[in-house]
């Protein structure tokens, strides 16, 4: 199968990890857990291995850092065949994050993070400054947390420390096995966003295992949908997998919400933002009233000195005699411009004005997203889906190995 279905074009990106005919047969089992898997993982991207439980995706991940030794095949790292090198040293070149996180309970946060640097023989000063740097990177105050023990952390904080520990010696590769699997949905969503933001800075090569297609679509630059025996059903970008599933298996695995999932692939930054009248906080009522009347909108938004949204005022609010801090409504429903339309739609439900305010990373006002813009995007997705359905109904158009199940 992998030979017939060549890995998708890697857009000219350098190959970081190349798995070649990787096979693992566990002793006493007849069926291989991983069956002749070949794939190239490009540098600086998040590649997701997704599939139902038992499909061999975790085994595949452990073959890459040789926690499990392959029965057959080769692992090539940046052109170097590492199938036979010292596996302990190999693992120090890759960060590893697991679902249970596995922070050592008898070591402080600092000692946990310092595990690999200490093995690599870094001196004390360098280790200490690296730990501080990493804690800040994952959004935790170093001085407050350095000497704490893992039992004093919440689930989300433990997970952050787990990521920091994996990145301690700045390995070019991170292997993550359902890293957000054991965390409540709200925290998970926040950690995913934080991690994506982090990745846009650090540009690691990441192999990420999950059974959750939504997580795969959200996190992945590239997704490998696996079937039993870790056989690749489709290896492609999330967009292409959602809009163009290779076969019935992939289509079933994506599930019915594919179009809605498409909203997680469109970003606020890609659509045209709408404008509302704005005024600097502290502007006089008369000036604000004029600005509001000069527009076709029903409310005006005030911004503070850093251009961060403060409050919404309607014309009636401006007529009231109370202080401006007491009338109007606080500016909620904010998203950053790298948020997905899915996020924006979500925020819209909590918005007073029916539009979502878009801000920069530092919180300054950029514009707003309206329901119409999202609806327009949904229409596009639906049109693409109709087009696909039409193509698939033409019998000799696509060489299908299995009949589409619709």
């Amino acid at each position, binding site marked *: 199968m992998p030979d017939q279905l060549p890995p998708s074009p890697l857009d000219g990106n350098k190959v970081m990890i190349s798995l070649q005919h990787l096979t693992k047969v566990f002793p006493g089992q007849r069926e291989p857990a991983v069956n002749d898997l070949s794939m190239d993982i490009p540098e600086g991207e998040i590649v997701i291995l997704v599939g139902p439980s038992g499909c061999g995706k975790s085994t595949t991940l452990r073959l890459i850092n040789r926690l499990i030794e392959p029965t057959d095949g080769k692992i090539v790292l940046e052109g170097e065949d590492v199938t036979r090198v010292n596996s*302990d040293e190999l693992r*120090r*070149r890759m960060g590893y994050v697991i679902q249970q996180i596995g922070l050592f309970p008898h070591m402080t946060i600092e000692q946990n993070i310092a595990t690999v640097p200490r093995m690599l023989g870094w001196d004390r000063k360098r280790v200490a400054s690296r730990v501080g740097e990493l804690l800040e990177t994952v*959004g*935790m105050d170093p001085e407050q947390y350095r000497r704490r023990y893992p039992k*004093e952390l*919440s689930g*989300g904080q433990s997970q952050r420390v787990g990521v920091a520990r994996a990145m301690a010696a700045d390995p070019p590769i991170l292997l993550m096995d359902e890293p957000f699997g054991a965390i409540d949905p709200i925290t998970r969503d*926040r950690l995913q966003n934080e991690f994506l933001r982090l990745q846009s800075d650090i540009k690691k090569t990441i192999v990420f295992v999950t059974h959750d297609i939504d997580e795969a679509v959200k996190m992945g630059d590239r997704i490998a949908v696996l079937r039993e025996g870790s056989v690749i059903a489709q290896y492609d970008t999330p967009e292409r997998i959602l809009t163009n599933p290779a076969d019935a298996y992939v289509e079933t695995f994506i599930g019915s919400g594919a179009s809605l999932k498409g909203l997680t692939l469109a970003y606020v930054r890609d659509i045209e933002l709408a404008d509302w009248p704005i005024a600097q906080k502290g502007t006089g009522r008369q000036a604000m009233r004029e600005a509001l009347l000069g527009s076709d909108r029903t409310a005006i938004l005030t911004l503070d000195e850093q251009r961060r949204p403060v409050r919404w005022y309607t014309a009636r609010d401006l007529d009231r005699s109370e202080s401006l801090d007491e009338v109007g409504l606080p500016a909620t429903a904010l998203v950053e411009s790298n948020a997905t339309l899915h996020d924006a739609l979500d925020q819209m439900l909590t918005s007073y004005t029916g539009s979502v305010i878009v801000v920069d990373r530092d919180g300054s006002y950029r514009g707003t997203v309206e329901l119409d813009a999202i609806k327009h995007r949904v229409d596009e997705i639906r049109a693409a889906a109709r087009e696909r359905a039409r193509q698939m109904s033409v019998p000799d158009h696509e060489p299908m190995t299995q009949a589409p199940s619709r």
Partner: protein
Amino acid sequence: MSAPEHTPVPAAGIAQGRAASVNAPDERSRLTRLGRYLVQPALLLLACLALFLWLNSLELDSIEKRRINVDFISTAMWQQIKLVAVSTVMVITIAVTLGILVTRPGARSLSPVVLAVANIGQAVPSIGLLVILALVWDIGFTPAVVALVAYSVVPVLRNTMVGLQQVDPSLLEAGRGMGMTKTAVLLRIELPLAVPVILAGVRTALIINVGTATLATFTGAGGLGDLINNGLRLGRQPVIITGGALTAILALTIDWLAGIAEDVLRPKGL
């Protein structure tokens, strides 16, 4: 969702609250622990004092005087302590090593066999073991130590095995996954985390050894058993009581020391 959620601040606040609430019971347990550290030795000192005063109030005859004097008692006490110390050190060495070996992957099938053999040592009555060794080998210090070791190896062995097996496998996976060698995982993760359980076994072994070492008198290894045995044979109650009370005081003192050791050696953060 991905809106301005610079969460560390509230998250940190929550964690601080948690830490504070965790600290309060810590503070209390430290106080109770301090109390335990001080109360037990105070009681033991009182017991020594009471024994001394009681013996002073008695008119001792010459037979009793030959046993109840500083020389005889300190020699017996020293022999007893030596028996206990040497046998316990050997037990720890043997049992912890064995416990590590049989919990390594690949040697797991050996563990029932090793436990069965160790259980035989404990199943044979201690006095029987002492006498058998004296008959087939020799009398004196060394055979007595061997008998004590055979008798008290099981609690340490079993606790070492349990202590190592109860370490969360995901910690080992995380350690190995980061490139720690098997030895490093054993020394830096498994053993430290097993220490509390192993120490509980050592404490049991120590108490067993203090008690059993009084029987070593029958095979010429001396110890506080000399006092008890002599007292019984000569029908001198003060001698018997002195031997018995000193054995009990020694056992409780060692238990107290072992308790402190457990608290001090338990890894922080658990």
